């Protein structure tokens, strides 16, 4: 009921932020944060809408690096089908502009170099395991190559601390993905909230435009309703 009302009040949202290929079973049907754009302040709206527009051209990654990074991030983020959120252009832009998190581990090169090196090492691992670069391997093989890096924990991986590499990849990938309105739709998060704010905080309380979770028992740890 609420979902239908939200759609009617702002139909523009659905067209510019399509629902991404779903790994989660569409828990918030009809929820589209962009239906509320008219309630956002213009500076925030401009920024968020820029993320659903044409992504920036690749400037930092070489074509080979772009291919490996795409395979890596698609697997890390479970983007196994179309349509997808284009995270690689966002990561590429951050690296080109040296927009780091403001620190690096002493045993790691600076972020851009660390991305280049780690992508090269992924291809080396992939060639050893599957006789081809990561981007050409099957999705299952890509997962296995990536899993083997995570399994190292803090141990050495081609001269780098594997946990510090894992942290680098997941920080950039998660930031790019969960900054996108299509990802917010998937998790029921309404995004910007200025100047309106919220009037119904509290457990099991919703704003008129928020959509109830259709599967509240889908505890990711409980193994129920997977």
């Amino acid at each position: 009921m609420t979902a239908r009302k939200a759609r009617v009040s702002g139909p523009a949202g659905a067209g510019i932020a399509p629902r991404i290929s779903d790994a989660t079973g569409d828990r918030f049907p009809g929820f589209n944060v962009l239906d509320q754009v008219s309630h956002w302040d213009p500076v925030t709206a401009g920024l968020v809408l820029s993320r659903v527009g044409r992504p920036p051209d690749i400037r930092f990654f070489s074509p080979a690096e772009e291919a490996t990074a795409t395979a890596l991030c698609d697997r890390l983020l479970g983007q196994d089908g179309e349509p997808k959120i284009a995270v690689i252009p966002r990561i590429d832009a951050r690296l080109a502009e040296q927009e780091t998190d403001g620190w690096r581990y002493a045993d790691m090169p600076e972020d851009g170099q660390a991305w280049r090196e780690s992508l090269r090492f992924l291809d080396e691992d992939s060639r050893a395991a599957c006789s081809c670069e990561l981007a050409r391997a099957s999705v299952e093989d890509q997962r296995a190559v990536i899993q083997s890096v995570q399994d190292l924990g803090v141990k050495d991986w081609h001269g780098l601390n594997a946990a510090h590499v894992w942290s680098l990849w997941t920080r950039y990938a998660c930031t790019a993905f969960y900054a996108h309105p299509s990802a917010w739709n998937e998790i029921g998060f309404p995004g910007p909230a200025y100047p309106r704010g919220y009037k119904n905080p509290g457990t099991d309380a919703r704003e008129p435009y928020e959509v109830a979770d259709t599967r509240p028992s889908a505890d990711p740890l409980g193994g129920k309703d997977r």
Partner: protein
Amino acid sequence: MAAVRERNESAWLLPNDGSRTNHRLRDDMRRFADSDLVDLVVVGCGAGGSTLLQRLARRGWQVVGLDAGPFWDPDADWVSDEAGSHHLYWTEPRVISGTDPVPMGSNNSGRGVGGSMVHFAGYTPRFHPSDFATWTNDGVGADWPISYRDLRPYYEDIEQELPVAGEDWPWGDPHSYPQRPHPVGGNGEIFLRGAYASGITAKVGPVAISNGRFGNRPHCIYRGFCLQGCKVNAKASPLITHIPDALAHGAEIRANAMVTGIGFDERTGRATGVHYICGGVARFQRAAAVAIAGYSIETPRLLLNSASRRFPDGMCNDFDQVGRYLMVQGAPQTAGRFEAEVRMYKSPPPEVSSEQFYETDPRKPYKRGFSIQTVSPLPITWAEHVAAQGHWGADLRRYMSDYVHWSCLGALCEFLAQPGNRVTLAEEKDRYGLPVANFSYSQCDNDKQLTRAAQGVMEQILHAAGADEVITIDRYAHLVGGARMAADEQNGVVDGNCRSFAIPNLYITDGSVLPTQGSANPALTIMAVTARAAAHLAAGGR
């Protein structure tokens, strides 16, 4: 509140038409020439620097505050968005090392007028009286050269100026707050319920978020983006609590000015001003006195980068104290899963806290303690939380789609001051050609025991509230120390009035002077220590 307005008119100098910045006040700001010998130049316009500027401008001093970052306009510069708030943090390069390296950036470092308080959550607890004598009481940490009693009147003043909202506070030195506690959202509700069920006292507050109109600052709208800069002007930061009054009393704020060195006269042994770069041009502001307020990483870095014949190992570093005893709080976050929708993003992250475990418990194997607070991470931060559990791929997405069902608590554990936890200069240089900071951090056994104890209490609270699953990640919060105050120059960099031992007209007025950190968020104490130093400066004349 009349008394507050008489000594700090900031909230009444903001616009009341729905916009957030008094552009007229900034346009009409007094401007000094580099060649003017101003009474005081302040490096950094965060919690410490801004408080000092406001206090001394009020006393008629000619003061200039320099900040490496922008003079923010919340309407134009800030967004109600997580990834888009990256520019609020100090993201110039830094190297982290040690056995337990501490991530910087969004975690603890601000840039621009208002400093880290622009993106701090808003918690403003006082330190406890015991924090000032942990060495005497427990044989750990250090004793301060001043006591809680010395700071108390300044705590009271600052609490009125921010202002702070919260319940009557039963811990430490019991006190009340100028504003009533805020209503709580889902996360606060769960903390209160779980604490009550497990016999733990929890209280709403203390937060520097206006509950009701304060001057021309509006009421909080509970939108949950406190860590992204408050576009409402409801959450306190010096940008709106101290800078407007400073401007009205003749202070100059020079933004986008990166200080690269402290001027020093070898003959007189006095500071002469500051070297800085603005718009690519290297300049020098003359001043009769200098106050450094760049916080625990940049303050030691600036001192180390200000070496001279008299100070070959860095300014004020005769006894190898600069950069040492830097502290962070262990800040494990424990989240609980509820069948009900919590939607923890729908309220300020700072809501409810408990200081029941703050003091040393003689029955425990560790010294000192921890506090517990609501934290309410937004999706990107929550994704880091989930990824830190090892989840990725479809697993990560499924986990994230469960976001609305999770409640999250955070602890602040009093990690102890250790000499080896310090800032040194790295090989790497920044875009100004200055060596960047290398911050080395390693935990001691007491630190690790506190973290696990805090995790246990948070799990207990969440289970008592009805959580069926809990997960915990280890992280850090806040920074203090690195140029601490002490009774003498062999044990610290400044005295109890924040004056450096080595140079009589050089002051440090920021979190780096704190010798211990308690389990309290440091902003209020940084402001109170600075307000006290300002009173001393004003009383002593120029």
